[in-house]
């Protein structure tokens, strides 16, 4: 026995599972998704057992597609026979439907047609009738092929919570009889806003908690960018989609440099910029160029800011004035205290420490910022730039008292040690 040396591409099982869910659900409806997922799971297990002995076949995707499709069609036909025996109602139309869908499925599974089914599934998972958190969980499960426990680790949630969210989402979509259709031109803009939000938040979930010990979180970031790319390559996209992709890629370029060998977070100022992924930065720049429009979105400004960081040789050589200008326009578009906080830091980095401090103080009087530890970090940062080490230490200590996540605590402690030296 000589197992084939044919190696599977990374995430092959996960992505094929997502492709199959999209195509088979398109054929038989969202109310069938549990059966469909079971059949795909069985097909993947069959592949795993067969290939580890006989080697990976020449066309592994085709192999899995065939097995999953046949398992599903068999299950549906058995069900029909059973129903018929019960009712004696001769539902030949159903057998006909199964037959018709069989040839549709073959076409939809062809490589060049797969994106179409995936796009439809994106709009289903980001259906406006679902809550944002549910949309994120369902997208990760259905379109990325993650398991429930992987999603739970990625989102820092109990597995039971993720499971319930996904089940509730499927039930509610089935009850509403949501079809796997692309939005009409009239509704596209509105539906796209939701998808953008979901992908943006999904990326953030992976990014904000990403550290070396949980590679799943990097995978979540990668998936958000992959789905966004899929949208950009379709007619279902807008300049905002392209700007979002640019933004995600600029951030993704810095993913590896954000953690050290022990998995601890490394701040922008301490990152080894040699480790930033040039390939991703170039791709991001080209998407940002393509996204030009008369009516820029928040993603356009966020991407432009991320770009300024990515093209700078160091924190000192960063064009902070340009970043302040971009934040000003961003705040005109969407008045968020988080943007205001970041603008204040940029103002300080640009040299106007007094103004930065004033802005932070006015933010500090806001009720919703009281427990926001990044505000204390921002105060500390401005004190640090001003040479007030003592005040900086005090602010970091306040931040430390508010920190919950272990990686935040570790980061603040290392910051404090540095300042105390």
């Amino acid at each position, binding site marked *: *026995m000589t197992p084939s040396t044919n190696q599977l591409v990374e995430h092959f099982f996960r992505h094929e599972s997502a492709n199959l869910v999209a195509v088979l659900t398109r054929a038989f409806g969202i109310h069938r998704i549990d059966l469909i997922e079971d059949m795909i799971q069985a097909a993947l297990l069959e592949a795993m057992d067969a*290939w580890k002995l006989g080697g990976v076949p020449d066309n592994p995707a085709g192999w899995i597609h065939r097995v999953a499709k046949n398992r599903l069609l068999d299950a549906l036909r058995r069900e029909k026979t059973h129903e018929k025996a019960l009712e004696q109602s001769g539902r030949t139309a159903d057998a006909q439907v199964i037959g018709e869908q069989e040839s549709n499925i073959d076409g939809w599974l062809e490589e060049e047609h797969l994106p179409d089914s995936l796009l439809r599934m994106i709009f289903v998972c980001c259906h406006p009738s679902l809550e944002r958190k549910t949309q994120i969980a369902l997208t990760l499960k259905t379109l990325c092929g993650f398991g429930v426990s992987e999603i739970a680790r990625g989102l820092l949630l109990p597995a039971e919570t993720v499971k319930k969210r996904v089940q509730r989402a499927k039930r509610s979509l089935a009850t509403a009889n949501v079809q796997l259709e692309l939005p009409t031109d009239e509704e596209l803009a509105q539906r796209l806003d939701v998808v953008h939000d979901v992908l943006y938040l999904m990326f953030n979930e992976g990014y904000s908690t990403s550290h070396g010990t949980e590679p799943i979180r990097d995978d979540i970031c990668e998936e958000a960018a992959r789905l966004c790319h899929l949208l950009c390559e379709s007619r279902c996209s807008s300049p905002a989609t392209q700007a979002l992709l640019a933004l995600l890629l600029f951030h993704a370029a810095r993913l590896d440099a954000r953690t050290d060998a022990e998995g601890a977070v490394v701040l922008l100022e301490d990152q080894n910029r040699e480790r930033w992924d040039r390939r991703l930065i170039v791709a991001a720049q080209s998407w940002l160029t393509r996204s030009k429009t008369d009516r820029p979105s928040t993603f356009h400004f966020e991407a432009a800011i991320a770009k300024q960081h990515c093209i700078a040789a160091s924190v000192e050589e960063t064009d902070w004035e340009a970043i302040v200008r971009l934040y000003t326009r961003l705040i005109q578009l969407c008045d968020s205290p988080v943007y205001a906080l970041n603008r204040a830091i940029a103002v300080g980095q640009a040299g106007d420490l007094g103004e930065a401090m004033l802005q932070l103080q006015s933010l500090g009087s806001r009720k919703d910022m009281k427990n926001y530890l990044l505000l204390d970090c921002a105060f500390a940062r401005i004190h640090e730039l001003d040479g007030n080490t003592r005040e900086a230490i005090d602010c970091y200590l306040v931040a430390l008292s508010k920190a919950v996540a272990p990686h935040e605590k570790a980061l603040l402690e290392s910051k404090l040690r540095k300042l105390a030296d």
Partner: protein
Amino acid sequence: MAKFMFLQRGGCEERPEMSPEEMQAGMKAWMDWVKNGTDEGWLLDPGSGLGGGAVVEADLTVIDGPFAESKELVGGYSVVEASDLAEACEYAKQTMKIAGGGRIEVREIASHGMPEE
């Protein structure tokens, strides 16, 4: 050199729900093990998993399925070559890492060939 059979007992009934990513990783670990064992020459037959079956009794009656408790059930086998039991057990330890549960029984395959000259 002697031949040994690895009998993988138990572990198969508690196969947890695997995610696609875990399946791919599990498969890769297995294929790496086969390649490594084959290249090094000690793995004679990576063997296979064993499915359901029947039991033929001494009175020639045939009964469905193996009866052992599930934790005693043989779920798969492999054949290796080693100079002694201790060496075979070292290979079994490598195998255990990809077995994902259960136990591996290492048994020498008795040879009844012609005596060596």
